[in-house]
């Protein structure tokens, strides 16, 4: 088993109160399901949109300003057999219902 990072990018953020609540409830159900099946290592955290970008120690700017479809809104860490399985497991993610994407990145393994 190896660890994989899910990066949640983009996705429409507006909608009727009822729609937004339903998206939220689908997320909770999906995360709970991953947990129940033993795939969830860390549910993760949401991220604020903005922040600071630091370059070469002295240059600090506000940002990053990227297109809304590329904004990373949060992350989770899961445990799976393979990258294929990790990608497969993300298919139930509700972010797809609102036009966002999940980026699946294997955590680099260090085997001596």
């Amino acid at each position, binding site marked *: 088993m190896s660890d994989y990072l899910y990066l949640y990018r983009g996705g429409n953020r*507006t909608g009727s109160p009822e729609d937004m609540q339903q998206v939220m409830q689908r997320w909770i159900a999906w995360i709970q399901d991953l947990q129940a099946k033993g795939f969830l290592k860390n549910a993760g955290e949401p991220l604020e949109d903005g922040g600071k970008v630091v370059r070469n120690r002295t240059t600090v700017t506000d940002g990053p300003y990227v297109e809304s479809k590329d904004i990373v809104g949060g992350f989770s860490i899961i445990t799976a057999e393979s990258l294929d399985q990790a990608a497969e497991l993300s298919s139930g993610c509700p972010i797809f219902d609102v036009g966002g994407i999940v980026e699946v990145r294997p955590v680099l393994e260090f085997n001596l």
Partner: protein
Amino acid sequence: MDPTEHLFRRESGRMVAALTRIFGVHNLSLAEDVVQDAFYRALEVWKFRGVPENPSAWLMRTAKNRALDLVRRDRNIRRFAPDIESLLSSEWTLAPFVAGAFEEHSIQDDELRMMFSCCHPDLPEIAQVALILNVCCGFSISEIASAFLVSQSAMEKRIARAKKVFTHSKRLFELESGADLSARLDSVQRAVYLLFNEGYHGASSQASVRADLCYEALRLGDQLLGHRLAATPATQALCALMAFNAARLRSRVDQNGHLASLLDQDRTLWDIHLIELGHRRLSESATGCEASSFHFEAAIASIHASARNFEETDWSAIVSLYDVLLSIQPSPVVALNRAIAIAQAEGPERGLEEIHAIVDGERLLEYPFFKAALGELEMRTGRLESAAKRFQAAMALARNPSERDFLQERLRVCRETSPSIV
């Protein structure tokens, strides 16, 4: 019921009300943006950490903090509610005022102010109801459009026009002035009843959508009852009437999704708690010397709710109530319902006589249940051929698939009784 069911929708109206009080009516869209932002934050945080212990308080706190940030950032470049501008300008008063605006009792008053403000006299009733649904009840434009079976763009225009009137009204409706409140209370009651009826008889074929509208109307009725000056006997009667009718919601549609008439409804499905609530409200409404049309409609509904079956209904009591109702609210639809009650009490021939004698009866020619009532009573007198023609004519007027199915079924029964009819 799951306490988080429709949570966002419910909290939406409460947050918009508190924020509009702070920002001013001209900043309604800013208040709506803050609410949208609070929901987005809730969605983001709760999906990872689960729904908090008190989700409603979490949302309120988020909206309150965002309001404080916004006022601090924009108070020199933007005008907020004119009557509280001095409170917002100083740090000494800003935080306590905004905190106070999000206290429960303050939110309740603001929700009521919003409801009264939505019933602006410059707006047609149907626009008042649409605005209430959008602003006070958190329904999106497309949800309202589908409930009223109108196009999204038509509803968008209707609500945009209504919001223009709202945002130009200078300030939220003042509840403290008893005279103003009484003057507008009539329109507020009518709007709430219209909303209820849209759910009860309305166009949408989705039973769940319609039940939601009815429950929203009950909730708005409760809000009115929560205010000393708005809780008049007429408001009590309106709430009684809605409770009695809402009690029958589950049985109005049978297991095949077809409309069931009062005669065919499974009365064991009626909601006893709502019927009890109706009786309680009705007895509370019997104070003072004011008897509104709601009083008589509620009294009629209470007789239906108390009858064990259709046959045991006290039809002569219902007829007398309709007599009074017709005298204070002369309308052909009331007259038609009275005629149907007379048919139950005194036989179909008497009912038909009354229907043909309706003053202004021509106003009912486009109403499918006018023809259907004629067909129903003619069927009972054995004039099946004529009855079948009435049902066919009624079907041509049906406003939605469930009405059409209902009339189709009556036509089928009519043909079954007399196979010679084509």
